[in-house]
């Protein structure tokens, strides 16, 4: 899916440009759920309708490097599941997107660095994933669109056994399905 999106993204961008809608910023919710559900959102939400118009364009705004939706990973401090303020705009963008795209479904993965015990890290990863889920729900996302799984320290993003690697592994990942 990601690979397809990578190929399709330039096409989408071209379409958007031709359609006179150069902006890839998500309009702040004025389209509501109707646009997404109907699959024909109109001018201001070209990317939203594209996202829900069927298989081929699905997830495209999520692949736009200029969109806050492009970022699907947020990072945590050691032994903490507190969402850092710097990641709130990213999560709010995802919340908006999910609200406007009720067909979208996210698996929120919680991960930890390798330090400490493995099963405690499963619980810590669970708590990180849950912190993200609760934030999105508080922003108005339907719980039915959200699922969580914790991998603890079992699925590191990067190898390495230093603070730099650990910082990249203490994360929650929004995996759109």
């Amino acid at each position: 899916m990601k690979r397809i999106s990578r190929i399709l993204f330039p096409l989408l961008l071209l379409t958007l440009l031709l359609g006179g809608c150069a902006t890839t910023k998500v309009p702040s919710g004025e389209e509501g759920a109707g646009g997404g559900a109907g699959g024909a959102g109109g001018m201001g939400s070209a990317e939203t309708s594209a996202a829900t118009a069927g298989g081929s364009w699905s997830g495209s705004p999520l692949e736009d490097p200029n969109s806050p939706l492009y970022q699907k990973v947020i990072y945590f401090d050691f032994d903490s599941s507190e969402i850092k303020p710097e990641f709130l705009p990213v999560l709010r963008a995802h919340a908006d997107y999910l609200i406007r795209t009720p067909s979208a479904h996210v698996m929120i993965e919680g991960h930890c660095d390798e330090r400490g015990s493995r099963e405690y890290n499963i619980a810590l990863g669970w708590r990180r994933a849950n912190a993200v889920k609760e934030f999105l729900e508080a922003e108005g996302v339907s719980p039915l669109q959200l699922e969580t799984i914790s991998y603890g320290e079992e699925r590191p993003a990067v190898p390495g056994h230093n603070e730099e690697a650990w910082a990249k592994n203490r994360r929650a990942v929004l995996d759109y399905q």
Partner: protein
Amino acid sequence: MKPLLQLFLLLLVLGAQAGRAELVIEITEGVEGALPIAVVPFRWSGDPASPPPQKVGRIVAADLHRSGYFKPLPESQMLAFPATTAEVDFRDWRALKQENLVIGEIAPNGPGGYKVNFKLFDVYKGEQLMGYSFATTARDLRSVAHHIADLVFETLTGKPGAFATRIAYIVSEGTIEKPRISLRIADSDGHNSQVIVSSSEPLMSPAWSPDGRKLAYVSFENGRPSIWIQEVFTGKREKVTSFKGINGAPAWSPDGRFLAMCLSKDGDPDIYVMDLARRKLRRLVRHWAIDTEPAWSPDGRYIVFTSDRGGSPQIYRIPVTGGKAQRLTFENGYNARASYSPDGKLLTFITRVGRQFRIAVMDLARGSTTVLTDGSLDESPSFAPNGSMIIYATRYRGKGVLAAVSTDGRVKQRLATQSGDVRDPAWSPFYQ
């Protein structure tokens, strides 16, 4: 001729693969004043052209050496190679300053069978301390050697040996994007490594049933964590839990009837106890904090677990019947993954010292804690069934390896495979 050659090559390849998976044990620190002992190579009395497939005497010597309690005499320094009492001249061994002597013989015993006998002597008194004879097969020769080591160890130290036991552990191979994870078991000396289950998804937390015949473990093979119980000897297995959220940290009760675990199905990670026969769950610990990593006391009355209810992970204890949880650890900001020694007097767990994660033991009667290891990412400690050693996971030269340390911290050994990261060890109970 050609097919035969191909078969031979295939066997070579298979042999090489089996060899790669073996754990190699290195003694990193031994006890000063370890007992000198001479283990003479066991004499084969059958056809010299087809000797037994295992060097039993050498396995015995290696076991004793690995314990840290003994210093076996190198074969090259031996003056004689007796195999019977009549052939023993104690003066030879006194001259070499050996306190004890082990001799043995292996004889053919029907098709594919062997008879192994051994004797243990006190060199200075010049008398036999014990002697046994075993009938066995090629497949079980290593196991007989470990039993002999157990008998020698117990006779000379007064403590039961744990050489004829096994370890279960997780090996991760491949790349970070495409890992190959396997749960394996091996003899306590690292030989006879066998894959029990393998997956491209995480496998975790192997736990032996008290009779050593089953392993409970966590598998993400269906994309989500589930607890499985697998029969070690038949490979038969069943899924025990597959609830929404966490299904983790399985721990058998000492009588094998219950499995404690961590589930988050009712909101938070909490400790549950399952009656295995009736598949009935009871929520033992209910708290908004993280509660996980249950472990039973050997008398079956208590469960210790990790909780961050006080703001950081610490060890707590609760009666199995329920009630108030009592906090056991107060030093250091991170204590987790506790388990009891077989006599119930000690707890081993991970503790954070500065920025390092190390293995500690707590004397429960005194409340005093000792840090046993000096790594920076040590985890998953598990007692040997005789309580003499703790096996744990650590890192060495950029790889995950297993290591063991004596409960007094004086003996250290490292176990390593040649490929992959090794972790999450669990030492088996004694086999009944």
